[in-house]
């Protein structure tokens, strides 16, 4: 019976992806992409990856959908591009070729090609956390996570440099929105803190918590209570930059204590990971919000 579930879900994912890519109307395409993200998240739950499903739903579907919606408002409707037959044929052949090779390569993957898994299981004991994904992200491969945050900051600097002159005018959200906010905002903050603490042992962690926090901040932004133009943007900017600063500081401090960069003093791994993760959660929440809202410094009118 679960095979029926998987086949239905697989067909839906391909259908929604195709609609997202080929819908003539932009709103339909973005709605299809949003739902596509939710269904892919559901498929990853079936593959035993609730952490990744949470991140995909929160970031890949929720936030990317909002970003696309905001960008599509300023864009002209898509003009259908005339594609000559040989061009289309070449595109079909290459696309089918790549997909076929990818499917074939994975099928012939040698079963014994497991390299990292036993290493993670062996060292999970002294990583300070019992959730293997968090152990890999924050302890064994902390360097990648640090650079990932630098990428996030670089994107924010680019968006700030391109400062959208025309602010996103929010449509009226009706009288029932403030009471909705009174439930949504505290629930997002509570859920974000719960995911942060849960991340050390169960699915959760800094990225999922940051994304859920950003969901709450977005709801506040749409309601108009949270503004990001003029001086109000400074605290959010500080939070956004704080994530990288805290992580680098912790790495250097760890080097001072134990001799190697990002090597937490043994025994105190969990405390170090949790302090870094809480700074990351706030920083990711602020960064993702600023990525959406853009930074409109006051005064500089076009």
């Amino acid at each position, binding site marked *: 019976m679960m095979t029926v579930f998987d086949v239905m879900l697989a067909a839906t994912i391909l259908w929604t992806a195709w609609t997202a890519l080929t819908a003539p109307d932009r709103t339909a395409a973005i709605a299809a992409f949003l739902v596509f993200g939710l269904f892919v998240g559901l498929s990853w739950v079936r593959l035993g990856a609730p952490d990744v499903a949470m991140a995909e739903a929160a970031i890949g579907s929720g936030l990317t959908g909002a970003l696309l919606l905001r960008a599509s408002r300023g864009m002209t409707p898509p003009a259908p591009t005339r594609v000559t037959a040989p061009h289309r044929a070449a595109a079909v052949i290459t696309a089918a070729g790549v997909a076929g090779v990818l499917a074939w390569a994975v099928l012939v993957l040698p079963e014994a090609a497991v390299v990292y898994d036993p290493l993670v299981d062996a060292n999970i004991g002294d990583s300070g956390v019992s959730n293997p994904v968090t152990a890999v992200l924050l302890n064994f491969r902390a360097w990648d996570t640090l650079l990932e945050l630098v990428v996030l900051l670089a994107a924010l600097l680019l968006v700030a440099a391109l400062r959208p002159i025309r602010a996103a005018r929010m449509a*009226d959200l*009706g009288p029932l*929105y403030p009471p909705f906010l009174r*439930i*949504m905002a505290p629930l997002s903050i509570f859920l974000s803190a719960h995911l942060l603490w849960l991340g050390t042992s169960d699915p959760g962690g800094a990225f999922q918590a940051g994304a859920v926090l950003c969901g709450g901040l977005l709801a506040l932004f749409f309601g108009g209570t949270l503004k990001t133009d003029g001086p109000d943007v400074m605290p959010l900017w500080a939070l956004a930059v704080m994530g990288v600063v805290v992580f680098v500081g912790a790495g250097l401090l760890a080097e001072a204590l134990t001799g190697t960069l990002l090597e937490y003093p043994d025994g105190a791994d969990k405390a170090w990971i949790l302090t870094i993760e809480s700074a990351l959660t706030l920083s990711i929440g602020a960064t993702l919000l600023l990525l959406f809202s853009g930074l409109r410094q006051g005064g500089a009118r076009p």
Partner: protein
Amino acid sequence: MTLLELFGYACLCGGAAFLLLAALGLWRFSDLYARLHALTKADTAGVALVALGAGCLDGRLVAIIPLGLTAILVAVSGATTGHLIASAALGEDEGEDENEEAAQP
């Protein structure tokens, strides 16, 4: 099969039935208000029943809190969006759409 489990499974089946009815309503009804009515009622009740059934079957506190919060959140967001669509659509129908003018970007 204790009585509680029986009640749990009954709630689950009821919730799934509500969701299927809402999907049918979303497709079959021609008028926006009829669809809206079918949708907001059925999907909120659907998730609430499914959450109640899951709560009965899995009695642990670690399950009941998220389930309860999910049901509340779905009900509240469904109500907010539903009300907004209805009032805006009603406003547009009668032409006195002063709040819509303000929304024109």
